[in-house]
């Protein structure tokens, strides 16, 4: 199960942010995306997740193999930790949440409503969702926001276990995870040149200009 991106150009709000992005993520590997704020890391991940179309280029990815985790965790504050996680397990058809609860140390919080969790606990619950999806390719946007040192270690352990099981992870992050085996890709050099903006407008747009 492999993710490869060839000559990908993406836009945010109609303005191109990255162009000519190329990389391959083999199974059992991890790739860390780096780059300054606003460079388009989130947009790149959303495009790969299929939430928005690319301007140009190709993404070779089986949609059914990918699990996406965004900035926000998608938790329902009136549901308990178990209910939140069980819902995603059922949606993805895996059904079991015990391993995920253990991996992110959530057992003690099982019956607490998600609204009563701290920011770091919410994030842990959001990351536990990845384990219950049962999907091999993880696409993660700033997964360690509001996590403490111990929780980051839990997260890295989960990523390692996932990679050993043949899974792969694409991670946009600013901090050093200590995940030494992961490759690092700086997206800075792929910044779209402003002159490209005119080319990005298609005939339909031009008809109104």
């Amino acid at each position, binding site marked *: 199960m492999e993710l490869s991106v060839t000559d990908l150009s993406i836009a945010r709000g109609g303005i191109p942010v990255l162009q000519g992005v190329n990389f391959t993520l083999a199974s059992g590997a991890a790739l860390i995306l780096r780059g300054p704020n606003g460079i388009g890391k989130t947009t790149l991940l959303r495009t790969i997740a299929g939430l928005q179309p690319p301007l140009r280029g190709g993404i070779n990815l089986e949609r059914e193999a*990918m699990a996406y985790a965004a*900035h926000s965790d998608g938790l329902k*504050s*009136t549901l308990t930790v178990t209910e939140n996680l069980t*819902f*995603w397990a059922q*949606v993805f058809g895996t059904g079991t949440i015990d391993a995920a609860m253990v991996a992110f140390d959530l057992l003690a919080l099982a019956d607490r409503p998600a609204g009563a969790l701290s920011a770091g606990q919410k994030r842990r619950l959001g990351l536990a969702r990845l384990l219950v999806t049962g999907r091999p390719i993880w696409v993660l946007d700033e997964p360690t926001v509001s996590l403490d040192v111990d929780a980051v270690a839990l997260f890295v352990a989960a990523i390692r276990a996932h990679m050993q099981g043949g899974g792969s992870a694409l991670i946009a992050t600013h901090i050093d995870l200590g995940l030494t085996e992961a490759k690092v890709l700086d997206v800075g050099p792929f910044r779209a040149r402003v002159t490209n903006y005119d080319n990005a407008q298609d005939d339909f747009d031009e008809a109104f200009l």
Partner: protein
Amino acid sequence: MIALFIRDMRLAVRAGGGFGLGLAFFLIVTVLVPFGVGPDNALLARIAPGILWIGALLACLLSLDRIFALDYEDGSLDLLATAPLPLEAIVSIKALVHWITTGLPLVLATPLFGLLLNLPVEGYGAMVLSLLLGTPALSVVGTFGAALTVGIKRGGLLLSLLVLPLYVPTLIFGAEMARRAAEGLESGAAMLMLAGITCGTIALLPFASAAVLRVNLR
């Protein structure tokens, strides 16, 4: 799909879910109308079907903007869109949950509220039946409107402006069916039109809702 249904039902009945809000609004409208038009029994009996229908319409409208807005704000809509469920199924489930939590209670409460408006005895059956046939269309059309306005801050007013004109056919035939039955006339044709509109919206609109949702998530 069942998991999403159960989750949304749970969210609706727990704190802040807004379950019963539409029903309470419906009750207040039907109580206010006799105060407004005066205690004229004959007049009330004549306008009762129309008032009940408009009350149901507004009660439905009240909870529409919650269908997608909450899921959009906490990010679960993005995650649902990348889940194995097709978006068409998601919007259909959302419309179904909206109907069960808003439309169905209105249908069940209508006999009681008809009493408050002096609805003629022979009109009760048709009134309930017309709402039963018509309210699913209100939920499905409303879900389409909610999908159109998701992501817009304070989109509720825009949603009302978009959705209310689309409710006109359902209102016309629903109120017509109830009125004719209350006056002892034949109401079959209006009933068939009403049922046809509902079937048509259920068959077609989930695809449109899923398409606009995809555009809105970009």
